[in-house]
């Protein structure tokens, strides 16, 4: 008898609590939405809506000065897919990404590994390696364009002093992109370095102790403990680095203006030149959408690849 009543009561009681939690959760959700709403409105107004407008622009001959001109359908997209300037800008961007990403990840790891050893004045090295990152792009380019100056720049001066030939850093089409990558490495390695250092300092020292008891040397410890433990941070850094490298613009625009002979011009600069120098924002919007899809594909591909590795491991 009492069992039956309990059995009846329990579902009714459960239903009652479900009812209660539904309303209070509904109220909690509403409050949360209220907090997010101001940002959401600004986000929708100044990011989502212009992106949609930009998509619309790409189907018109849209002028920076005169606004909407004639409807072009897919003509802008047809133009860009047969445009040698588009393909060369894409190749330049991918070339820059392929060159700079390994450098910025491996170099950052090496620096962090060195600084993480029990060396005195760790704070000093942290500051030195991170300091270039706080400089603005114009300052960095100013410094490096004088370093690269043919004839009396510091780098060429050093090369000739030790008996080597001068290198035309910014006027030789084969070397110019390397010059850009070198500048970028000096400037931004600090960010990845700091992330790696923080990650390394979080690895519990017991792991290293256990390994050294088992007879592992420094190299083995690094290979089997440090690197695997930094797996998640490495994934993050890789994805961020690739996305940032694909969107390179500032340092190339200021250092070489995309030259010599457009050999370093990245995609963003081509978009800028089409839209702002040539006033053709419709065409520029088309290019930026195609580029957006490309970055999306690369990022999703990266993410899937890495999460599959994660699951397999």
């Amino acid at each position, binding site marked *: 008898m009492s069992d039956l009543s309990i059995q009846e009561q329990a579902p009714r009681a459960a239903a009652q609590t479900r009812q209660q939690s539904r309303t209070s959760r509904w109220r909690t959700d509403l409050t949360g939405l209220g907090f997010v709403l101001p940002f959401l409105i600004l986000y929708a107004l100044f990011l989502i809506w212009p992106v949609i407008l930009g998509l619309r622009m790409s189907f018109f001959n849209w002028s920076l*000065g*005169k606004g909407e001109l004639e409807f072009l359908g897919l003509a802008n997209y047809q133009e860009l897919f047969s445009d040698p300037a588009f393909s060369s800008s894409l190749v330049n961007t991918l070339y820059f990404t392929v060159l700079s990403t390994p450098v910025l990840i491996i170099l950052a790891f090496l620096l962090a590994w060195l600084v993480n050893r029990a060396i005195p004045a760790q704070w000093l090295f942290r500051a030195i390696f991170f300091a270039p990152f706080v400089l603005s792009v114009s300052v960095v380019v100013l410094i490096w*364009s004088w370093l690269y100056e043919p*004839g009396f720049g510091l780098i060429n001066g050093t090369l000739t002093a030790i008996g080597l030939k001068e290198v035309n850093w910014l006027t030789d089409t084969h070397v110019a992109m390397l010059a850009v990558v070198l500048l970028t490495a000096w400037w931004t390695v600090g960010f990845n370095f700091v992330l790696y250092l923080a990650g390394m300092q979080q690895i519990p020292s017991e792991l290293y102790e256990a390994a050294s008891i088992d007879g592992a040397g420094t190299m083995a410890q690094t290979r089997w403990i440090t690197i695997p433990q930094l797996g998640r941070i490495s994934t993050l850094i890789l994805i961020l680095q690739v996305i940032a490298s694909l969107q390179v613009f500032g340092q190339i625009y200021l250092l070489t203006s995309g030259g*010599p*002979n457009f050999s370093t011009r990245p995609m963003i600069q081509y978009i800028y030149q089409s839209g702002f120098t*040539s006033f053709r924002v419709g065409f520029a919007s088309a290019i930026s959408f195609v580029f957006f899809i490309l970055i999306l594909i690369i990022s999703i591909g990266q993410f899937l690849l890495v999460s599959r590795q994660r699951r397999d491991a």
Partner: protein
Amino acid sequence: MISEHDSIPEQLTTTASNGRLTRRAFLERSIALGIGSGAALTLLNACGSSPTTDLTYWNLFTGGDGVRMVQMQKDFTKSHPNINFEADTLTWGDPYYTKLAMASAGGRPPDVGISHLSRVPAFAASNMLDPFDLNELAKYDISEDKFLPSLWQKAQYNGKLYAIPLDTHPFVMYYNIDVCQKAGLLGPDGKLKPLDGTAAVMDALKKAQAVTGNLGLALDTRDVQPWRLFYTLYNQLGGQILSSDGRTLVIDEGKAEQALSFMRDLTITNKVASSTMDYGGAVATFGSGKAGFHWNGDWELPTFQGQNLHFDMLPIPNFFGQTYYAQADSHSFVLPHQATVDPTRRAASLEFISFMLKDSLVWAGGGHVPAYLPVATGNDYKNMSPQSHYASVASNVVFDPVAWFSGSGSELENQAGQAFQTVLVGQFTPQQAIAQFSAALQKLLKIPPPL
């Protein structure tokens, strides 16, 4: 009560440092204070001031000449206290023209702006500029007879006047007096002997190089400079780039090759100029006396004067013995298109332009050749040295071809600079460079114009 109000800022700071003021209270009081003082300021401003006209002005003078423009602006505000004048300097090139275009399209641009004359046709064609009323202008001493006919013509579009030229800034030749003296290139009057023809020019550059032991000519081989040099040479050969309606490419390949071959001789064959020098490097090289000659626009005059360099300036030589031309552009005043024209502001704009023209002797100190003839033909300017030495060029200048993609800082200049740089560094032959440049122009001509 009164003392409490007066010392609210002190109250805030003491209570904040005491730690007795909560964040909320601090915010409340400081906002009240801010609003209160803001309201007080606007009230103060409204009463007690005479009726003033507002005038806004945009320019792109971020170079050394910007200092002179600021001086002229100060002269204007001093002599016109009843005009509430506001000037904005934007970065030269795209950042300036895109903002001017968008402001004009939006209907609320500045009252007066600067524009290169080479950009005026494209902007005027898109209704982004208002034409000048010639009758109104005459009241301010601005009329056709006060400018060179070629400049006045250039400022017209469709029979109406859209710009008032302030100056001409041609491509000129700087030379180091000491180096040229040692090289035996000066005449008995202490001035450079005339260099007629490419052979004479090359000979002079070699002699100067022997003296400096470094370079004969400091030339920027990147960015836009190759275009300016090419355009000067090409026009001296009688060549044209675009047809007069701006629709067809009419490049004379033979003449273009001849021009580019001479440029190649400078850096590759005879090595009197460096093939890899940039703008800053060229100015630094000449300024420190490590080159005998420097070819550039006239605007670096204050830079070299500031370095106490013993130098002089002359028109760029006549290389081929034919009709003389030098590449130039001109800064001019324009009236961006307003949605509704305020007559008092328009009158103040004309007053401003007129004052600037009459004050352009100050502007000439920056190196540019004044366009306003009463100043350019006056004795004060004629006595300015070295400005008066190259002022004669103004009647023989040639502007960039007329097209929507052309003008100072435009895509045409980008393409030209990149294509011709390949010749100066020895990467491409003149024929290849012309082919690349022509292809780029053909592509631009086919695009439906956005202006």
